[in-house]
């Protein structure tokens, strides 16, 4: 399984990069894109939307099926990736290089509680 060590992860297969200014950049993991198959549609949250940790806030659809993407932490969405919406297959090509949205977290404790790469690997191995 392809993983990037200095990213954070969720059990629901989002990756999270903590930026220098404390904001979070979010995408889905390579494992997620592999499970989904050929991705053909993305619906991303608008900037300004307030989300709760674990809230379904985006949709990713492959040829096969639709899946929800969950907010990794509570906070405010500050940007979404229009380029990815226009080329959803880029998630298949490079899941860790294709960010989907950015969040300004409301509570840093939630950020600290995200999984590291080893814990995410263990979660996937356990069948999540």
């Amino acid at each position, binding site marked *: 399984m392809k993983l990037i060590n200095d990213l954070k992860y969720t059990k629901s297969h989002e990756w999270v990069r903590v930026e220098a200014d404390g904001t979070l950049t979010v995408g889905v993991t390579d494992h997620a894109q592999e499970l989904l*198959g*050929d991705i*053909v*549609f993305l*619906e991303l949250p608008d900037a300004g939307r307030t989300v709760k940790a674990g809230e379904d806030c985006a*949709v990713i*659809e492959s*040829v*096969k*099926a*639709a899946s929800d993407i969950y907010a990794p932490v509570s906070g405010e969405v500050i940007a979404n990736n229009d380029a990815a919406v226009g080329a959803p297959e880029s998630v298949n090509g490079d899941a860790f290089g294709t960010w989907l949205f950015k969040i300004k977290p409301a509570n840093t404790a939630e950020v600290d509680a995200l999984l590291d790469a080893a814990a995410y690997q263990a979660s996937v191995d356990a069948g999540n």
Partner: protein
Amino acid sequence: MGQRTPLYNEHLALNAKVVDFAGWDMPIHYGSQLEEHHQVRRGCGLFDVSHMRVVDLTGADCRPFLSHLVANDVAKLTTYGRALYTCMLNPQGGVIDDLIVYHFADDRFRLVVNAGTADKDIAWMREQAKAFANLTITPRADLAMIAVQGPTAPQTLYAAVAGSEAAVAALKPFNAAWLGGVDATDATLIARTGYTGEDGFEIMLPATQAATVWQALLQAEGKPIGLGARDTLRLEAGMNLYGQDMDEQIGPLESGLSWTVDLKNAERNFIGRSALPTQPTQQLVGLVLLDRGVLRSHQKVITAQGEGETTSGTFSPSMNASIALARVPAGVALGDAVEVEIRDKRLKARVVKAPFVRNGKVLVSVE
């Protein structure tokens, strides 16, 4: 673990992702469903459809039996090897299954039925057969079936299977011929039929020969195609999927299958005939989504004549747009603007005539 076809190990060797389909362990894709879809539209794809059930009928009562059993009229089957697509209805006019009937002689026919309904179909046929003295129903679990589909399917088949060109090169669609001219229960039957909207063949052959033929087809530029692409191909081709676009609760006239219901012979009292409505209140139509999104089954369709529902929906790789089949009120017309509810949003769609794609060409506009 589900049932496995004679080609199960071939799928594993090709790194298939295997899923359960109607109790069978079947390949959903071998890597990319999209690439497999395009392969069939542009080249040649191979499908293991051995989970479908071949049922042979023999005996002097074959014709009267089939004339009673199915909604299309087997009187149309007069030439050797001719095939007919039809529904088998219950007394309420619902669809028990859709199937293909092949004719060889008045006392010899072959049926091909769906995997998920095979046991129920055979039980129903045996029940109906009680009224016919000279009839034998023989399910053929000893046969495998491989579909070879796409514009280059003939070249692949001819290169892979010795004698196939001589047997089938002159075959028109919906006709079948025996390999080597050998008409025998353990011989190989090649039909010019399929479920993709492309030229191609379905080969019914002894299970013991399936792996050898499959490998030869791969050698001859055929690429393996999973059930995922099979579904997007058939939906683009405007072909119904049993259990999704029609079932026992709904009839052929409300399922886009009026063309398969033959009422010309007023004397022919086939099962379900008396229950068919003279004026169906619903119809099955094609939809193209004009907004961004992906249509799926069971989404609400809002029309000027009332509400309906999508029965099958997908992203169409050939059109780069989303398409669906939908059951809507009878008054809805081709070209009508409708809305489809997807996750509490209403998206714009247009009613179009299926098929969406045939022989590699897109037939409907997505503008």
